[in-house]
């Protein structure tokens, strides 16, 4: 029988990482995600699975430890929150450019600057549009439950290794701190040295009996070769866009109005939709699970059916740009957001709906 546990989203990440068979975690404390490192330290996986857990001297060092570990073919991850993830951007760009799989968790807090330690979704641009320098994308997964926090560790690692590119779990302080029921994945063994060498023939883990050396680098001074590298990255991104879009639809069959929301906010919106429907207003929702690749085609399809779209975000309006690009002006798209740790309630979402769409009355 499945074992149901009650824990915080951040704790679920730690448990799931061990159970996935992750090889290493490198992190630096920052609110509201420090429980990831704390939980790992308490669980002592180095005594069971052999997973390495290390508190680094900075976020910069932590992401570069991830880079070093990933370059040897190991399944490694880090976690942080917004200001710390800004510090990690250099390393993330290098991971993308060196085509290295890795998992990065951002439990977002309000910014800019030190901002607040309260929940936010203001790093959407940073996560989905690059964040660091150069033409690259991360695979970005947006969990809205503690269960998804646990599940996306395995999904994130699997996608990262499948496409040889870093993946990010873009959570917010609500999902990170909230306690909820969760069924943890089965414990898997860590990959053996032989499995690693077979699965990651590119890994710079020591030549062994290979007849050539492996070099992991993001540097290419010859412009024609660098362009070819970039074209290869873009080919990978097109494949990810074609194969890995994930989303969930709620009440869209007959919806006349559509809400697009991700992460914890989608849960608030779901309650608002239930309230609206109780009053006879047909509102539906699309919740992007992958923020990159973005469910562009699905939103475009729904745009043909609805009178208008409202994005609800814990920011000043970021995902709305991708929604507008998806619908290409066919329907009005409005934004409702709260910032700096302020969380809207379902009533506010309904008020925003009726304010944006004047024919809508509750």
């Amino acid at each position, binding site marked *: 029988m499945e074992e149901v546990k009650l824990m915080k989203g951040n704790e679920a990440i730690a448990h799931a990482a061990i159970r996935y068979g992750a090889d290493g975690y490198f992190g630096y404390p920052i609110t509201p995600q420090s429980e990831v490192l704390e939980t790992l330290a308490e669980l002592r996986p180095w005594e069971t699975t052999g997973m390495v857990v290390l508190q680094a001297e900075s976020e910069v060092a932590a992401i570069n430890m991830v880079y*070093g570990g990933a370059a*040897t073919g190991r399944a490694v991850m880090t976690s942080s929150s917004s200001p710390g993830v800004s510090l990690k951007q250099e390393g993330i760009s290098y991971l993308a450019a060196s085509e290295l799989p890795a998992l990065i968790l951002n439990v977002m807090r309000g910014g800019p600057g030190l901002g607040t330690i309260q929940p936010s979704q203001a790093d959407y641009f940073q996560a989905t549009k690059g964040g660091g320098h150069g033409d690259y994308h991360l695979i970005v997964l947006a969990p809205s439950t503690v269960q998804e926090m646990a599940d996306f560790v395995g999904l994130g690692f699997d996608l990262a290794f499948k496409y040889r590119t870093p993946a990010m779990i873009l959570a917010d302080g609500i999902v990170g701190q909230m306690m909820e029921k969760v069924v943890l994945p089965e414990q898997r063994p860590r990959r053996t040295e032989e499995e690693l060498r077979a699965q990651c023939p590119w890994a710079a883990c020591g030549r062994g009996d290979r007849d050539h050396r492996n*070099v992991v680098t993001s540097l290419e001074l010859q412009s024609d070769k660098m362009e070819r590298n970039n074209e290869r990255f873009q080919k990978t991104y097109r494949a990810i866009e074609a194969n890995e879009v994930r989303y969930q639809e709620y009440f869209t069959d007959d919806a006349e109005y559509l809400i697009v929301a991700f992460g914890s906010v989608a849960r608030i919106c779901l309650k608002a939709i239930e309230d609206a429907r109780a009053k006879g207003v047909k509102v539906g929702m699309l919740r992007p699970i992958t923020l990159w690749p973005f469910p562009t085609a699905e939103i475009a399809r729904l745009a043909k059916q609805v009178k208008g779209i409202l994005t609800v975000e814990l920011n000043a309006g970021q995902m709305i740009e991708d929604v507008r690009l998806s619908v290409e002006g066919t329907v009005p798209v409005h934004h409702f957001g709260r910032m700096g740790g302020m969380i809207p309630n379902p009533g506010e979402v309904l008020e925003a709906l009726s304010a944006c769409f004047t024919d809508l009355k509750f």
Partner: protein
Amino acid sequence: MTQEEIIRPENKVYSRPDLLCDVHTHYCPGCSHGVVHKIIAQVLDEMGVADRTIGIAPVGCAVFAYNYIDVDWIEAAHGRAPALATAANRLNPGRLVFTYQGDGDLSAIGTAETIHACNRGENIAIIFINNAIYGMTGGQMAPTTLLGMKTATTPYGRRADLNGYPLAITPLLAQLDGTCYVTRQAVHTPAAVNKAKRAIRKAFENALAGKGTSVVEVVATCNSGWKMTPAQSNQWMAEHMFEKYPLGDLKDVESKTK
């Protein structure tokens, strides 16, 4: 005895190391990097560990070190080599992991990563090339640039009031509990090269034996940056650099405990 009689395989006493790749290096004529690369390759050959070595290359002139020594390499972001080495080593037991870093990489932008890797006593070897200048970017001031020394960003000579003091970082590293061996070497004479080679071997053996962090600083020249000939540079180094950066062991835990 004719040249033909002498030049026979059985009489060979000095060979190009097998581990050096058959390519021209991008280094300027006379650059110390070439000498240090060569002795690293020799040591790896002699220890027979090329199959389990991971080198971490820096940003700086030695960024292409990975093109020259035939082992697995990871190219780090500027200054982050010790962080990469930390993970590469902890996740892959039994490997020889070493970083190769210049003075900008190790003692400016990477100071934090260097100090903390040493303080954790990571079982890695750090090869630190100190030529008191930024070579790759065109000869700007390094933390280790001597007072009075002219560089592209101190064209009238380094001044303490404007630019701060030359940073001797290895004595700092020697104070940390995690380091087991900290030494300062040079490669300007045959004797110095042989001594530096022995130091690198010891550092690599320490890393494999899990004794903690070893740091081998090589006080080096940058004749292009210094605007001298290679031979003049060696002389200038001996006359000026060794006063601030004296050669010799700063710490050797093994010899102390005996």
